[in-house]
């Protein structure tokens, strides 16, 4: 039940993009087309799940027992960067179709703050191993949901007559604001 709550709170209530502001760069950069936005979301979910597992293990088995918690940031970011590189190589070797779908998005994910943010939040909230994984999956799905909705809206927005100064980033931000307002409606759903 608790895992269930963590999952839904990460997907809807405390959505990574719309309430923690993590992963805004890809959210604005890659949300032009629904198909690529969805692929980006899936790639991010995949990496977030792996990150949750690996950083939890490193943090709780290596850093904390050895009193080296001050190395957290350096360790996390190195792990994430190498993990992304490794996943990219692995997918390239094993599944060409998957690589074609996700490949180009993987390098971008290293600097996606949602990934490092996830590792930090798991540490901050002192989640257990299982809770951390659920939080990672939920966060990833929440990201996918937000970026897909955004891409769907932006495809329609291309047809709309937006005032010239607002084209591009400004109107995207305003749409995101309205989306965040809508997501606030979920906050009564679960009280965490």
């Amino acid at each position, binding site marked *: 039940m608790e895992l269930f709550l963590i999952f839904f709170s990460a997907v809807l209530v405390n959505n990574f993009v719309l309430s923690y502001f993590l992963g805004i760069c890809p959210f604005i950069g890659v949300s032009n087309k629904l198909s690529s936005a969805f692929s980006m979301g899936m790639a991010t979910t995949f990496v977030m799940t792996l990150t949750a597992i690996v950083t939890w293990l490193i943090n709780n088995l290596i850093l904390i027992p050895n009193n080296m918690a001050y190395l957290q940031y350096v360790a996390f970011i190195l792990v994430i960067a190498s993990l992304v590189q490794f996943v990219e190589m692995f997918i390239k070797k094993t599944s060409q179709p998957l690589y074609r779908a996700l490949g180009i998005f993987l390098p971008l994910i290293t600097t996606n703050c949602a990934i*490092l943010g996830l590792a930090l939040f798991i540490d901050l909230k002192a989640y257990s191993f299982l809770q951390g994984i659920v939080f990672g999956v939920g966060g990833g799905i929440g990201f996918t949901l937000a970026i897909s909705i955004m891409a769907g809206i932006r495809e329609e927005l291309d047809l709309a007559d937006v005032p010239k*100064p607002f084209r591009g980033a400004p109107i995207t931000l305003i749409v995101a604001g309205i989306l965040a307002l809508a997501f606030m409606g979920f906050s009564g759903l679960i009280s965490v």
Partner: protein
Amino acid sequence: MSKKVSVMGEYIKGLWRNNPIFKQVLGMCPTLAVTTSALNGIAMALATTFVLFFSSTIISFIRKLIPSQVRIASYIVIVATFVTIVDLVMKAQFPELSKALGPYIPLIVVNCIILGRAEAFASKNNVGRSMLDALGMGSGFLIALVMLGSIRELLGTGTILGFQVMPNFYEPWLIMILPAGAFLTLGSLMGFFSFLSMRRKRLLMNTEIKRDIEKKKPVIVNSAEV
């Protein structure tokens, strides 16, 4: 990266013309997350400037030693080191601020402004210019965060830096300090600034055309620097 930019120009360009937030749209996560009040914005910008300044300096200093295949990883390690320093200092000296900013201090590591400047500027220019460039970008970031933080604090709670500004009967717009307010404020500000720059460009073009007509010369419209 024109080499003819004057030394002062390296600093000034970051303030407005290449402002990291409004013009380059970099480093959005901390910008949106911490600007619930002007003070938080200032603290965040100062922390980021510190990291940006020292990592740019060091990266530019050792730019010829870093093999280009592993440069991104090396940059990230350098940046993460300085972020750890900032985080520990803030926890010790300003525990309240550190709590208010929470995980967004460590997230400076993945702030695109820092990596972006390292990759685009510090790795190609000498130490002095990189320092000035970092300071300029940091100041531009500060301007943007203070602007955003003040607007949100003023409308959301009726205060600026904790001082009551709005009259008593003012009903605070709670939405401005919630996440949705961040997106709406930044979107409107960016739209407003691009409106201003478009208008200036149009006025400039009009006067140019008028002058050319007076001189009875063929109209040449310069594509002004972007």
